[in-house]
């Protein structure tokens, strides 16, 4: 019930502009579940097909549950030249996941990303909103531990 009320509020807040609604729903609920999209369709009068089409159009929106932290590795030609494969190996060694996979504890997901605009400082990656550049395979352990730590502090 509480969730439904929140969806109503978000729908009103963005006055018919679907994309900001979807972004906010994802921020608050983690991902865009089917029930959330259905409720949004009912609330806004926007056809569910259109809502789903928009939700699945953008790379940063997701209708599937992902890890709490999404690691996004730049796949542009400039970063491709910079030992990106070794970074992927280092992540596999730390977390046991390959691109498009999520760790069992749902803490991390790994994805590829289009150009992150850090082409002179490749390879680049983002973890949620944080950008890392000139990443070396030996940096991966330390980068990931920051997010493990953040969890411990919260708890």
């Amino acid at each position, binding site marked *: 019930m509480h969730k439904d009320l929140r969806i109503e509020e978000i729908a009103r807040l963005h006055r018919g502009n679907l994309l900001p609604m979807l972004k906010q729903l994802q921020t608050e609920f983690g991902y865009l579940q089917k029930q959330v999209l259905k409720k949004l369709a009912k609330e806004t009068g926007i056809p569910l097909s259109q809502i789903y*089409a928009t939700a699945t159009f953008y*790379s940063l929106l997701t209708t599937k549950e992902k890890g709490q932290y999404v690691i996004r590795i730049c796949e542009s030609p400039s970063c*491709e*030249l910079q030992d990106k494969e070794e970074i992927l190996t280092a992540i596999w060694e730390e977390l046991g996941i390959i691109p498009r996979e999520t760790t069992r504890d749902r803490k991390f997901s790994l994805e590829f990303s*289009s150009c992150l605009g850090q*082409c002179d400082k490749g390879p680049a990656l983002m973890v949620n909103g944080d*950008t890392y550049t000139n990443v070396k395979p030996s940096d991966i352990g330390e980068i990931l531990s920051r997010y493990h730590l953040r969890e411990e502090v919260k708890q």
Partner: protein
Amino acid sequence: MIDSPLALRNITRNIDKIDPESIEEYLKTDGYEALKKTLTMKPKEIVSIIRDSGLRGRGGAGYPTGLKWYFAANTQSDAKYVICNADEGEPGTFKDRILMEGDPFSLIEALTIAGYAIGSNKGYIYIRDEYRLSIRRLQNAIEKAQQSGYLGLNILGSGFDFDLEISIGAGSYVCGEETALFESLEGKRGEPRIKPPYPTESGLFGKPTVINNVETLVNIPLIVNRGADWFKEIGTECSPGTKIFTLSGDVARPGAIELPLGTTLRELIYEVAGGISSEEKLKMIQLGGAAGHCLSPDYLDISLDFDSLAVKGLSLGSGAILVLDESRSIIKTAYSLAKFFCHESCGQCTPCREGTLQQKEILGRILSKKSSEKDLELLERLSVSMVQTSLCPLGQTASLGISSAIKHFKEEFLSYSERGI
């Protein structure tokens, strides 16, 4: 920014020189002088200055900025919009990011001048979500400009109202195409519209809209302050002004640099970027990002300006320059381009949706040495169809890097396909 004696610091004058979060520091470097001057003039006069300057769009198309403003200014409407296209996503490009991170107030001042010139009271900056620092700096700059009376109602007592809003994307390359950007700003899938009507007639929410790239806009305060004649003295006759080039790949000093239009690739790669970073020789240059042409070293002396390139069927694009040395595989680079466009095609029109998929599959075959010579022919025919029949610039340019790579490095492609038979 790359340190070089060739560098100019016009639009990049404040980067790393002032605190980008301080409006006081911006004001000390002639900040908002151009807006003050603008508000004493008629909107028509401002449009004339920009037209006279010959400023052309820095987002890739090179369309005359003053002409866009002129059309929008002369269209009657109850509402008009000014939009800054800050959805920088062209692989190899980061010029707009450094401008927004390093000098956000210049952009905001420019948009306010644009609003006054065309008779608009509302502007948007559409920016990609990945540019978090740029977003923070712009938000801060907008708030400070509002608090100091440079944005909002009755700006500096002139009676002119103008406000700005930041709209953040959600991960889509095609949203950098202007009409797809309008769709996204309206909250929908970012699918490009059919043109005409052009944005100056019917853009955001169907209203007359001027949409300019970040780098284009930051030229505006300088042109208003220093005059069209000053601007025309830099660069070439048909491509006046400077351009920020972003160098990446196998060069000794990758990074961004502001240079006059008309600089050669040779100067950029060997003088500015310090040449090739390894012991290897230069093999390939991709000019203008993923949507640009792959060139051989024979092109080193080409002048980087809109017209010299157009004569050769090339384009400056975003000003991105990717350099590969002899150790690199052209096939791998071509496959990487194909993968990128296949992922980013919006799927609306068939030549692009199917064409980008087929490019990826065929190049995948070539890469795994399972192709025949016919596959190269197929790629070339596919490219012609995509260029001629795709709806928007994404589809029209998605095969250029690949077809030009085949043209200049055919031997390498053939060596892969022959072994595979």
